[in-house]
Protein backbone atom coordinates (compact mmCIF):
# COMPACT_ATOMS: atom_id res chain seq x y z
CA UNK A 1 0.00 0.00 0.00
CA UNK A 2 2.76 2.36 0.95
CA UNK A 3 4.40 1.61 -2.31
CA UNK A 4 1.27 2.54 -4.29
CA UNK A 5 0.84 5.85 -2.49
CA UNK A 6 4.42 6.67 -3.18
CA UNK A 7 3.90 5.88 -6.79
CA UNK A 8 0.81 8.04 -7.19
CA UNK A 9 2.71 11.01 -5.77
CA UNK A 10 5.14 10.63 -8.59
CA UNK A 11 2.25 10.31 -10.97
CA UNK A 12 0.82 13.68 -9.88
CA UNK A 13 4.18 15.34 -10.11
CA UNK A 14 4.76 13.95 -13.57
CA UNK A 15 1.37 14.96 -14.91
CA UNK A 16 1.77 18.46 -13.51
CA UNK A 17 5.09 18.71 -15.33
CA UNK A 18 3.55 17.44 -18.53
CA UNK A 19 0.70 19.92 -18.31
CA UNK A 20 3.17 22.74 -17.80
CA UNK A 21 5.20 21.82 -20.88
CA UNK A 22 2.06 21.42 -22.95
CA UNK A 23 0.93 24.89 -21.91
CA UNK A 24 4.34 26.32 -22.87
CA UNK A 25 4.11 24.77 -26.26
CA UNK A 26 0.73 26.32 -26.97
CA UNK A 27 1.90 29.80 -26.07
CA UNK A 28 5.21 29.51 -27.86
CA UNK A 29 5.84 30.45 -31.47
CA UNK A 30 6.67 26.89 -32.45
CA UNK A 31 3.01 26.13 -33.10
CA UNK A 32 2.42 29.08 -35.46
CA UNK A 33 1.99 28.62 -39.20
CA UNK A 34 4.32 30.60 -41.47
CA UNK A 35 3.05 33.58 -43.44
CA UNK A 36 3.62 32.84 -47.11
CA UNK A 37 4.12 35.09 -50.10
CA UNK A 38 6.06 38.26 -50.74
CA UNK A 39 6.89 40.57 -47.89
CA UNK A 40 8.18 44.09 -47.70
CA UNK A 41 9.94 45.96 -44.96
CA UNK A 42 8.55 49.46 -44.45
CA UNK A 43 9.87 52.01 -42.06
CA UNK A 44 7.62 54.31 -40.17
CA UNK A 45 8.20 56.95 -37.56
CA UNK A 46 6.50 56.34 -34.24
CA UNK A 47 7.06 58.90 -31.46
CA UNK A 48 10.12 60.19 -33.22
CA UNK A 49 11.71 56.70 -33.53
CA UNK A 50 12.11 54.87 -36.78
CA UNK A 51 10.46 51.43 -36.68
CA UNK A 52 10.75 48.71 -39.31
CA UNK A 53 7.49 46.95 -39.99
CA UNK A 54 6.85 43.96 -42.24
CA UNK A 55 4.05 44.19 -44.79
CA UNK A 56 2.80 40.77 -45.82
CA UNK A 57 1.24 39.91 -49.14
CA UNK A 58 -2.53 39.84 -48.84
CA UNK A 59 -5.30 38.66 -51.13
CA UNK A 60 -6.65 41.70 -53.02
CA UNK A 61 -10.30 42.76 -52.90
CA UNK A 62 -12.67 40.74 -55.08
CA UNK A 63 -16.31 40.56 -56.01
CA UNK A 64 -17.98 37.48 -57.46
CA UNK A 65 -21.41 35.87 -57.62
CA UNK A 66 -21.99 32.73 -55.56
CA UNK A 67 -24.15 29.68 -56.25
CA UNK A 68 -27.25 31.63 -55.20
CA UNK A 69 -26.32 34.46 -57.62
CA UNK A 70 -25.65 36.70 -54.61
CA UNK A 71 -22.58 38.95 -54.53
CA UNK A 72 -19.71 37.78 -52.34
CA UNK A 73 -16.55 39.78 -51.63
CA UNK A 74 -13.53 39.78 -49.34
CA UNK A 75 -15.54 41.11 -46.39
CA UNK A 76 -17.57 37.89 -46.33
CA UNK A 77 -14.30 36.17 -45.44
CA UNK A 78 -12.75 38.65 -43.01
CA UNK A 79 -14.20 36.98 -39.91
CA UNK A 80 -13.12 33.52 -40.87
CA UNK A 81 -10.13 31.57 -41.99
CA UNK A 82 -10.85 29.89 -45.32
CA UNK A 83 -9.67 27.20 -47.70
CA UNK A 84 -9.81 28.10 -51.37
CA UNK A 85 -9.38 26.17 -54.61
CA UNK A 86 -9.87 26.44 -58.38
CA UNK A 87 -11.92 23.82 -60.22
CA UNK A 88 -14.69 23.33 -62.78
CA UNK A 89 -17.80 21.19 -62.54
CA UNK A 90 -17.15 19.09 -65.64
CA UNK A 91 -13.54 18.35 -64.74
CA UNK A 92 -13.03 14.61 -65.26
CA UNK A 93 -9.68 14.25 -63.51
CA UNK A 94 -8.62 15.74 -60.17
CA UNK A 95 -11.63 17.86 -59.21
CA UNK A 96 -13.78 14.98 -57.93
CA UNK A 97 -10.96 14.08 -55.52
CA UNK A 98 -10.62 17.72 -54.46
CA UNK A 99 -14.37 17.99 -53.86
CA UNK A 100 -14.38 14.76 -51.85
CA UNK A 101 -11.52 16.12 -49.72
CA UNK A 102 -13.13 19.54 -49.23
CA UNK A 103 -16.25 17.74 -48.03
CA UNK A 104 -14.01 16.26 -45.32
CA UNK A 105 -12.99 19.82 -44.33
CA UNK A 106 -16.65 20.86 -44.28
CA UNK A 107 -17.61 17.83 -42.20
CA UNK A 108 -14.98 18.64 -39.59
CA UNK A 109 -15.94 22.32 -39.23
CA UNK A 110 -19.62 22.21 -40.16
CA UNK A 111 -21.44 25.11 -38.49
CA UNK A 112 -18.20 26.75 -37.28
CA UNK A 113 -18.56 30.39 -38.35
CA UNK A 114 -14.80 30.90 -38.25
CA UNK A 115 -14.23 28.46 -41.11
CA UNK A 116 -15.29 28.85 -44.74
CA UNK A 117 -14.54 27.25 -48.08
CA UNK A 118 -14.30 29.18 -51.37
CA UNK A 119 -14.21 27.28 -54.67
CA UNK A 120 -13.68 29.30 -57.86
CA UNK A 121 -14.78 27.95 -61.21
CA UNK A 122 -12.15 28.37 -63.90
CA UNK A 123 -14.77 27.66 -66.58
CA UNK A 124 -17.26 30.50 -66.00
CA UNK A 125 -18.61 30.19 -69.53
CA UNK A 126 -20.21 26.86 -68.65
CA UNK A 127 -20.35 26.97 -64.83
CA UNK A 128 -22.96 29.71 -64.43
CA UNK A 129 -24.19 30.22 -60.84
CA UNK A 130 -27.15 27.91 -61.54
CA UNK A 131 -24.73 25.15 -62.62
CA UNK A 132 -22.65 25.73 -59.48
CA UNK A 133 -25.84 25.53 -57.43
CA UNK A 134 -26.67 22.15 -58.94
CA UNK A 135 -23.14 20.93 -58.24
CA UNK A 136 -23.35 22.10 -54.61
CA UNK A 137 -26.74 20.42 -54.21
CA UNK A 138 -25.42 17.15 -55.59
CA UNK A 139 -22.51 17.29 -53.14
CA UNK A 140 -25.09 17.72 -50.39
CA UNK A 141 -23.92 21.22 -49.44
CA UNK A 142 -26.43 23.53 -47.80
CA UNK A 143 -26.10 27.14 -46.68
CA UNK A 144 -23.08 29.33 -47.35
CA UNK A 145 -20.21 27.93 -45.35
CA UNK A 146 -18.91 26.63 -48.70
CA UNK A 147 -19.18 29.37 -51.34
CA UNK A 148 -18.74 28.79 -55.06
CA UNK A 149 -17.44 31.82 -56.95
CA UNK A 150 -18.41 32.83 -60.47
CA UNK A 151 -17.14 35.87 -62.36
CA UNK A 152 -15.46 37.04 -65.57
CA UNK A 153 -12.72 34.59 -66.56
CA UNK A 154 -9.99 37.26 -66.42
CA UNK A 155 -10.94 38.18 -62.83
CA UNK A 156 -10.93 34.55 -61.71
CA UNK A 157 -7.53 33.88 -63.28
CA UNK A 158 -6.15 37.04 -61.65
CA UNK A 159 -7.35 35.69 -58.29
CA UNK A 160 -5.64 32.37 -59.01
CA UNK A 161 -2.40 34.34 -59.46
CA UNK A 162 -2.88 36.07 -56.11
CA UNK A 163 -3.33 32.71 -54.42
CA UNK A 164 -0.27 31.47 -56.35
CA UNK A 165 -2.29 28.75 -58.10
CA UNK A 166 -1.73 28.01 -61.76
CA UNK A 167 -4.80 27.88 -64.04
CA UNK A 168 -5.16 28.22 -67.79
CA UNK A 169 -7.46 27.22 -70.63
CA UNK A 170 -5.87 24.41 -72.66
CA UNK A 171 -7.75 22.31 -75.19
CA UNK A 172 -5.24 19.47 -74.71
CA UNK A 173 -5.80 19.10 -70.96
CA UNK A 174 -8.52 16.76 -69.62
CA UNK A 175 -11.79 18.69 -69.77
CA UNK A 176 -10.16 21.67 -71.56
CA UNK A 177 -8.42 23.37 -68.64
CA UNK A 178 -5.04 22.90 -67.09
CA UNK A 179 -4.84 23.67 -63.42
CA UNK A 180 -3.36 22.62 -60.13
CA UNK A 181 -5.21 20.96 -57.29
CA UNK A 182 -3.94 23.21 -54.52
CA UNK A 183 -5.90 24.01 -51.39
CA UNK A 184 -4.78 27.41 -50.11
CA UNK A 185 -5.31 28.27 -46.45
CA UNK A 186 -5.97 31.97 -45.83
CA UNK A 187 -6.21 33.69 -42.45
CA UNK A 188 -8.63 36.38 -41.25
CA UNK A 189 -6.19 39.09 -42.38
CA UNK A 190 -6.24 37.69 -45.95
CA UNK A 191 -2.69 36.33 -45.68
CA UNK A 192 -1.71 32.95 -47.14
CA UNK A 193 -0.78 30.53 -44.35
CA UNK A 194 -0.49 27.20 -46.16
CA UNK A 195 -0.67 25.41 -49.52
CA UNK A 196 -1.61 21.73 -49.79
CA UNK A 197 -2.03 19.24 -52.62
CA UNK A 198 -5.81 18.76 -52.53
CA UNK A 199 -5.55 15.35 -54.19
CA UNK A 200 -3.26 13.83 -51.57
CA UNK A 201 -4.75 12.29 -48.44
CA UNK A 202 -1.70 13.03 -46.24
CA UNK A 203 -1.58 16.66 -47.32
CA UNK A 204 -5.28 17.01 -46.57
CA UNK A 205 -4.74 15.64 -43.02
CA UNK A 206 -1.96 18.19 -42.65
CA UNK A 207 -4.36 20.93 -43.77
CA UNK A 208 -6.90 19.81 -41.18
CA UNK A 209 -4.38 19.97 -38.33
CA UNK A 210 -2.92 23.27 -39.61
CA UNK A 211 -6.42 24.76 -39.57
CA UNK A 212 -6.67 23.94 -35.86
CA UNK A 213 -3.31 25.63 -35.27
CA UNK A 214 -4.42 28.71 -37.21
CA UNK A 215 -7.74 28.93 -35.36
CA UNK A 216 -5.86 28.73 -32.06
CA UNK A 217 -4.02 31.96 -33.00
CA UNK A 218 -7.32 33.82 -32.70
CA UNK A 219 -8.19 32.23 -29.38
CA UNK A 220 -5.03 32.92 -27.41
CA UNK A 221 -5.40 34.89 -24.16
Amino acid at each position, binding site marked *: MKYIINNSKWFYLLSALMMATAACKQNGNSEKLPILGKREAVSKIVNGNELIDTLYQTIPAFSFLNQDSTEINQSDFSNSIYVTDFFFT*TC*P*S*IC*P*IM*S*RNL*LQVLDKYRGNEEVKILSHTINPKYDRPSVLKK*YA*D*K*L*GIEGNQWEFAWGPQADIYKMADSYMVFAKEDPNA*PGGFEHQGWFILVDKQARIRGAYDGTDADQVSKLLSDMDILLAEYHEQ
Partner: protein
Amino acid sequence: MSNRSLTVLGTLLAIVAVLYACQGEEAIRKAQYYTNGQKLYAQRCQNCHGSNGEGLGQLYPPLSDTIYLAGNLNKVACMIKFGSNETIEVLGKIYDSEMPPNKDLTDQDIAYIMTYIGNSFGNELGWIKTEEVTNSLAACNKGD
Protein backbone atom coordinates in the same frame (compact mmCIF):
# COMPACT_ATOMS: atom_id res chain seq x y z
CA MET B 1 21.52 -32.04 -57.90
CA SER B 2 21.34 -34.26 -54.89
CA ASN B 3 18.64 -36.84 -54.44
CA ARG B 4 17.39 -34.92 -51.48
CA SER B 5 16.81 -31.67 -53.33
CA LEU B 6 15.19 -33.53 -56.22
CA THR B 7 12.65 -34.94 -53.80
CA VAL B 8 11.99 -31.50 -52.37
CA LEU B 9 11.55 -30.03 -55.84
CA GLY B 10 9.25 -32.85 -56.85
CA THR B 11 7.09 -32.40 -53.79
CA LEU B 12 6.87 -28.67 -54.40
CA LEU B 13 5.84 -29.20 -58.02
CA ALA B 14 3.19 -31.65 -56.94
CA ILE B 15 1.80 -29.16 -54.43
CA VAL B 16 1.68 -26.42 -57.05
CA ALA B 17 -0.06 -28.75 -59.50
CA VAL B 18 -2.66 -29.74 -56.93
CA LEU B 19 -3.26 -26.13 -55.96
CA TYR B 20 -3.64 -25.21 -59.61
CA ALA B 21 -6.16 -27.95 -60.21
CA CYS B 22 -8.07 -27.10 -57.04
CA GLN B 23 -8.32 -23.44 -57.86
CA GLY B 24 -9.17 -24.18 -61.44
CA GLU B 25 -8.16 -22.14 -64.45
CA GLU B 26 -11.16 -19.91 -64.08
CA ALA B 27 -10.27 -18.82 -60.55
CA ILE B 28 -6.71 -18.08 -61.58
CA ARG B 29 -7.84 -16.04 -64.56
CA LYS B 30 -10.28 -14.19 -62.36
CA ALA B 31 -7.49 -13.36 -59.91
CA GLN B 32 -5.25 -12.09 -62.71
CA TYR B 33 -7.98 -9.97 -64.25
CA TYR B 34 -8.94 -8.65 -60.82
CA THR B 35 -5.38 -7.55 -60.02
CA ASN B 36 -4.87 -5.84 -63.38
CA GLY B 37 -8.30 -4.25 -63.08
CA GLN B 38 -7.53 -2.87 -59.66
CA LYS B 39 -4.60 -0.88 -61.09
CA LEU B 40 -6.65 0.50 -63.96
CA TYR B 41 -9.49 1.34 -61.59
CA ALA B 42 -7.13 3.41 -59.42
CA GLN B 43 -5.94 5.33 -62.48
CA ARG B 44 -9.23 5.85 -64.31
CA CYS B 45 -12.22 5.47 -62.05
CA GLN B 46 -11.34 5.95 -58.40
CA ASN B 47 -11.33 9.76 -58.53
CA CYS B 48 -15.08 9.75 -59.15
CA HIS B 49 -16.30 6.44 -57.79
CA GLY B 50 -14.03 6.37 -54.72
CA SER B 51 -11.54 3.82 -53.42
CA ASN B 52 -14.35 1.80 -51.85
CA GLY B 53 -16.76 2.28 -54.75
CA GLU B 54 -18.74 4.67 -52.56
CA GLY B 55 -19.28 7.34 -55.25
CA LEU B 56 -19.58 11.02 -54.35
CA GLY B 57 -22.84 12.53 -53.17
CA GLN B 58 -25.32 12.63 -56.01
CA LEU B 59 -22.62 13.57 -58.49
CA TYR B 60 -21.09 10.14 -59.06
CA PRO B 61 -22.95 6.90 -58.32
CA PRO B 62 -21.61 4.15 -56.02
CA LEU B 63 -20.59 0.84 -57.59
CA SER B 64 -22.09 -1.18 -54.75
CA ASP B 65 -25.54 -1.61 -56.32
CA THR B 66 -25.13 -5.34 -56.98
CA ILE B 67 -28.49 -5.62 -58.72
CA TYR B 68 -27.74 -2.70 -61.04
CA LEU B 69 -24.33 -4.06 -61.98
CA ALA B 70 -25.47 -7.66 -62.47
CA GLY B 71 -28.37 -6.54 -64.63
CA ASN B 72 -26.46 -4.06 -66.79
CA LEU B 73 -23.17 -5.73 -67.73
CA ASN B 74 -23.52 -5.01 -71.46
CA LYS B 75 -24.46 -1.42 -70.80
CA VAL B 76 -21.61 -0.91 -68.30
CA ALA B 77 -19.03 -2.10 -70.87
CA CYS B 78 -20.44 0.52 -73.26
CA MET B 79 -20.41 3.21 -70.54
CA ILE B 80 -16.75 2.55 -69.73
CA LYS B 81 -15.68 2.71 -73.40
CA PHE B 82 -17.95 5.46 -74.71
CA GLY B 83 -18.97 7.40 -71.60
CA SER B 84 -22.53 8.07 -70.51
CA ASN B 85 -24.80 11.05 -70.16
CA GLU B 86 -28.15 9.60 -69.21
CA THR B 87 -30.36 9.70 -66.17
CA ILE B 88 -29.92 6.49 -64.21
CA GLU B 89 -31.10 5.18 -60.85
CA VAL B 90 -28.54 3.54 -58.55
CA LEU B 91 -29.37 2.40 -55.00
CA GLY B 92 -32.61 4.36 -55.17
CA LYS B 93 -31.03 7.68 -56.13
CA ILE B 94 -31.08 9.52 -59.45
CA TYR B 95 -27.80 10.42 -61.19
CA ASP B 96 -27.49 12.58 -64.29
CA SER B 97 -23.89 13.79 -64.39
CA GLU B 98 -21.61 12.85 -67.22
CA MET B 99 -19.20 9.92 -67.19
CA PRO B 100 -16.28 10.51 -69.58
CA PRO B 101 -15.33 7.93 -72.27
CA ASN B 102 -12.17 5.79 -72.16
CA LYS B 103 -11.75 5.17 -75.87
CA ASP B 104 -8.11 4.16 -75.54
CA LEU B 105 -8.90 1.15 -73.32
CA THR B 106 -8.82 -2.21 -75.12
CA ASP B 107 -11.54 -4.85 -74.70
CA GLN B 108 -9.07 -6.71 -72.52
CA ASP B 109 -8.52 -3.67 -70.27
CA ILE B 110 -12.27 -3.26 -69.89
CA ALA B 111 -12.61 -6.95 -68.97
CA TYR B 112 -9.92 -6.44 -66.30
CA ILE B 113 -11.75 -3.43 -64.86
CA MET B 114 -15.14 -5.12 -64.98
CA THR B 115 -13.75 -8.22 -63.27
CA TYR B 116 -12.37 -5.92 -60.57
CA ILE B 117 -15.56 -3.93 -59.92
CA GLY B 118 -17.65 -7.06 -60.50
CA ASN B 119 -15.93 -8.72 -57.54
CA SER B 120 -15.52 -5.75 -55.20
CA PHE B 121 -17.83 -3.50 -53.16
CA GLY B 122 -20.21 -6.43 -52.49
CA ASN B 123 -20.45 -7.63 -56.11
CA GLU B 124 -19.76 -11.32 -56.86
CA LEU B 125 -19.94 -11.71 -60.59
CA GLY B 126 -16.87 -13.91 -61.15
CA TRP B 127 -14.51 -13.71 -64.12
CA ILE B 128 -15.72 -11.37 -66.87
CA LYS B 129 -14.05 -12.52 -70.08
CA THR B 130 -12.63 -10.39 -72.86
CA GLU B 131 -14.96 -11.99 -75.45
CA GLU B 132 -17.95 -10.97 -73.37
CA VAL B 133 -16.77 -7.36 -73.44
CA THR B 134 -16.14 -7.56 -77.20
CA ASN B 135 -19.70 -8.80 -77.70
CA SER B 136 -21.17 -6.12 -75.42
CA LEU B 137 -19.28 -3.38 -77.26
CA ALA B 138 -20.35 -4.67 -80.68
CA ALA B 139 -23.95 -4.28 -79.54
CA CYS B 140 -23.83 -0.76 -78.14
CA ASN B 141 -23.95 0.95 -81.55
CA LYS B 142 -21.56 3.65 -80.60
CA GLY B 143 -18.51 2.91 -82.69
CA ASP B 144 -17.25 5.91 -84.61
